[in-house]
């Protein structure tokens, strides 16, 4: 009798358990950010032409043996990139070396963007088909990678960079 009673209530108990877990998940959805799996790996080999007149192009050789860098994927058509521009400017003024990769952009649009929001970049490569972006395991703009002096990727920041990221970035830049 007791066993039958257990069996009778079991489906309801399972239902309540499932419903609760679904509800909890609805309130705390999984992050939709896709992190690169290349943290700890050497930057992929690439050589990108200059994104606009008056800047230098970027290749993987520029990231090896010349101290740590911030590699910032951005685009003139990307709205959140505008919001991180002042932060990057401040970081460049603080002496942090930043290089840029412009995704699917035209030279004149990049020039306009830099003219309006400032140019914190030492070099800017142009990645017109997002090929190098895919090579980095990046899935959107803006995204920023910290690459150490040996060319190893140390950190990825998805979305516009802000002051809340500074401790992580400083730690990654200082790591040997």
């Amino acid at each position, binding site marked *: 009798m007791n066993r039958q009673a257990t069996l009778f209530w079991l489906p309801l108990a399972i239902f309540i358990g499932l419903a609760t877990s679904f509800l909890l998940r609805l309130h705390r959805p999984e992050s939709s950010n896709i992190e690169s799996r290349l943290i700890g790996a050497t930057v992929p080999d690439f050589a990108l032409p200059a994104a606009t007149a008056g800047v230098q192009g970027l290749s993987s050789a520029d990231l090896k043996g010349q101290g740590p860098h911030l590699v910032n994927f951005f685009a003139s*058509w990307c709205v959140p990139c505008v919001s991180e521009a002042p932060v990057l400017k401040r970081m460049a003024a603080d002496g942090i070396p930043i290089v840029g990769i412009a995704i*699917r952009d035209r030279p004149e649009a990049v020039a306009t963007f830099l003219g309006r929001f400032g140019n914190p970049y030492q070099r800017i490569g142009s990645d017109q088909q997002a090929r190098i972006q895919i090579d980095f395991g990046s*899935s959107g703009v803006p995204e920023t990678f910290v690459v150490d002096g040996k060319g190893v990727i140390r950190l990825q920041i998805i979305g516009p960079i802000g002051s809340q990221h500074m401790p992580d970035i400083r730690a990654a830049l200082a790591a040997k």
Partner: protein
Amino acid sequence: MRRALFLIALLAGAGAVLADSNLPPAPYADVQLPDPHKEAEAKALMETLRCLVCQGQSIADSNAEMAGDMRSLVRERIAKGEAPEAIRAYLVRRYGDWVSYTPPLDGSTAFLWAAPALLLLVGGVFAGGSIRRRRR
């Protein structure tokens, strides 16, 4: 009529609101490979790769610019003779199993793969017991 024109004008401006570049799509984003056999191979692979920005769709189904870039990458690599599974491995190496719609059998997915057999077994035991009781 004026309202219709106004709506059309609004729609024409909508392109600027969507965060997409103004560059044309990658060469093989929406163009099939000349070799039908290779195109079929590429298409089959594209249907099992997940779009990174529109996360419920395969790159074959998605209109996102990034999906177009990935389609072009897949077609160009297939055209060069690379095996579909090697291209999948290249993407999984960068984005994790997440990017593939064919989950591998490992610790975290073992239950997923075993579940149908387990459920069938449990159902069979229940059904067997109930049939035996009714026969009596």
